[in-house]
């Protein structure tokens, strides 16, 4: 233990000068603020300063954390309130009577299961398609050498700059020309229109390519010596090694589908074919007798839409935060 303490680098702590043993000739530069103070006084002042800064930091952080959490809290308690209480002059921060019946009512009005089913089907198939195309393309960009590879990759990266709204207009026309959009649209056609245009993502290709590049060359050489083809090397070695990135992509894709609103709204002809966000926004939670929107029902529906995402986050926090965070790391 003693050795450790003596080995701590000088930079870790401030050095203090013992005034009693200082001679006039010693070259010591003191700052003006610290002149005339004893070592203990300076130390104490610094400690107090440190405590104050820490407390202020915590106050700042906790206040903002409260603001961040507040909408969630308000969503949950409003979903359990009676309509009179929601619109009353004195707002309550906890429901007087907990109305679980709001949820029962909402499940009757808001066709949650249909929207949920549609969303999951679209999410699963668009994720599978994306993973397949992404793995193949990332492998080609990371491991194979062919003419024009770098220029194709550069073009791909440039397309990331283009706002998706540029594409929506023409994609709508394209999908319509495939016969997937129209007044006599079937459920399968609606699914195809919502899935196929999202079977590729340049950003995920970029992400996975970076991951593939980190896999040591020796593995590739060893596989070559063993007579393995590129194809089996890709699926037997690279894909398992890149599993964390693939899981991140899967979850982010699911979250994306759960959140998608514009495109499903455009390409579907019937409310039954739409996804969860569309269902939530277009469902009417108006009370038949009063003619006003029942916020209690509305918030119960938003809770139902938010909870699955939260569960996903609780179980896959690491992958989500890594996948999102990697977007910002250079190189």
């Amino acid at each position: 233990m003693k050795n450790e303490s003596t080995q701590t680098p000088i930079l870790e702590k401030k050095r203090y000068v013992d005034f009693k043993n200082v001679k006039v000739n010693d070259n010591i530069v003191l700052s003006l603020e610290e002149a005339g103070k004893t070592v203990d006084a300076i130390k104490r002042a610094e400690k107090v300063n440190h405590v104050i800064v820490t407390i202020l930091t915590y106050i700042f952080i906790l206040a903002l954390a409260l603001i961040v959490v507040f909408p969630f809290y308000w969503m949950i308690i409003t979903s359990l309130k009676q309509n009179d209480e929601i619109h009353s002059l004195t707002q309550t921060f906890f429901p007087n009577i907990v109305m679980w019946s709001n949820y029962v009512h909402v499940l009757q009005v808001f066709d949650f299961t249909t929207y949920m089913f549609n969303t999951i089907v679209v999410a699963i198939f668009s994720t599978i398609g994306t993973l397949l195309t992404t793995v193949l393309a990332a492998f080609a960009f990371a491991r194979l050498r062919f003419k024009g590879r770098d220029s194709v990759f550069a073009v791909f990266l440039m397309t990331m700059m283009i706002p998706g709204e540029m594409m929506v207009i023409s994609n709508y026309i394209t999908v319509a020309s495939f016969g997937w959009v129209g007044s006599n649209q079937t459920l399968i056609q609606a699914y195809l229109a919502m899935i196929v245009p999202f079977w590729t993502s340049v950003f995920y290709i970029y992400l996975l390519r970076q991951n593939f590049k980190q896999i040591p060359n020796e593995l590739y050489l060893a596989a070559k010596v063993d007579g393995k083809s590129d194809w089996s090397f890709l699926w037997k070695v690279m894909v398992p090694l890149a599993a964390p990135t693939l899981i991140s992509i899967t979850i982010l894709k699911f979250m994306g589908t759960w959140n998608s609103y514009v495109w499903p709204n455009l390409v579907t002809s019937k409310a039954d074919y739409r996804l969860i966000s569309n269902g939530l926004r277009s469902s009417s939670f108006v009370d038949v007798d009063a003619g006003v929107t029942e916020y209690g029902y509305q918030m119960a529906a938003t809770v139902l839409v938010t909870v699955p995402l939260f569960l996903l986050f609780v179980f896959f926090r690491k992958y989500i935060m890594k996948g999102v965070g990697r977007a910002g790391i250079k190189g």
Partner: protein
Amino acid sequence: MVAQTEPKNPNELYDEVRPVYEEGYDSSTNTVVRLVSKRASDKAYRTRGIEDLGARNNWKGWLYLAPVLILVAVFLIYPLINTIFIAFTENYQYASGKFDGLTFKNFTYILGLTTKDNGARETYFVKYAIPNTFLIVIVTVPVATLLALLISVALNSIKWFQKVLQTIFFLPYVTNAIAVGMVFSVIFDQTGVINYLFHTDITWIYGANQYTAMIPLCLYIVWSSIPFKILIFLSGLQGIDKQYYQAAQIDSAPKWKVLWKITVPLLSPQILYILITSFIGAWKEYTAVVGLFNGPGTYGKGGDPNMETIVYYIYENLNQNTSAAAAAAVFLFIIILAFTGLQFLASKKRVHY
């Protein structure tokens, strides 16, 4: 934003430095001179590099790329060109693909400078879409970035509950944009909690005026855009060498000076990335408006779509007025390109890589 990933220096791949020999003939002494260079040349690296093993499979690379290339061509490249083309056509019919010749009129039409054949004049784009979008951009981007920077610096400096707080600040990222938009509209309801807490009686959402409704909208956008920024800043902060801070501590540098002179410059790549992505995102704001107002406006006086944004305009005119929608999309594209380009230029000197 993408840095070069190819290692330029072959020493990154190989621990030992292999000398590269080059032979030449010195005519003055009539001897063969052997030039020795300690640095392996790029060429030497390439011939030794692993990628050469795949050089024979020239066609195979394209085979692996084929599915993506087809999808990118059909759903990314073609639409881009086609949208620009539609922007210059007159009365494009999306169902039949017919149009009445080429024109520049679409741009002047959306900007309210010319009228359509039937005499209709477009005012929503100039009156609402452009100012609203511009306001969102200049308010939310700096506020959210600065707030995210302060939160990440604070989060990085604390010891207790760091992980818990980090998770809390990430929560807005894993929510449904429409759902939380609806929650915000309940919070800002006339009989809602905000008016109750601040003892005000302001109409924020339904029936509100353009600039009042901007407040909840911007708050919501800032709230929902902060998690991503914090995540990026935190990963950047963790990469900063502790020695800089220790040196500052020895010099008794004040905290704000440490933040401004050490943290911000060293974090500049992440700040640039965040600024560019959030500028692009703010120009494209749409779902926040749908979530909060359930439509393009608050339906106050006259029922105008007073909260319309540029993207909202594009989606609204997609079916009936495809040419105008395409023109608005091209307009947005040009703005985003110009902004991104400007930021790159401005940051060239200031960003430390």
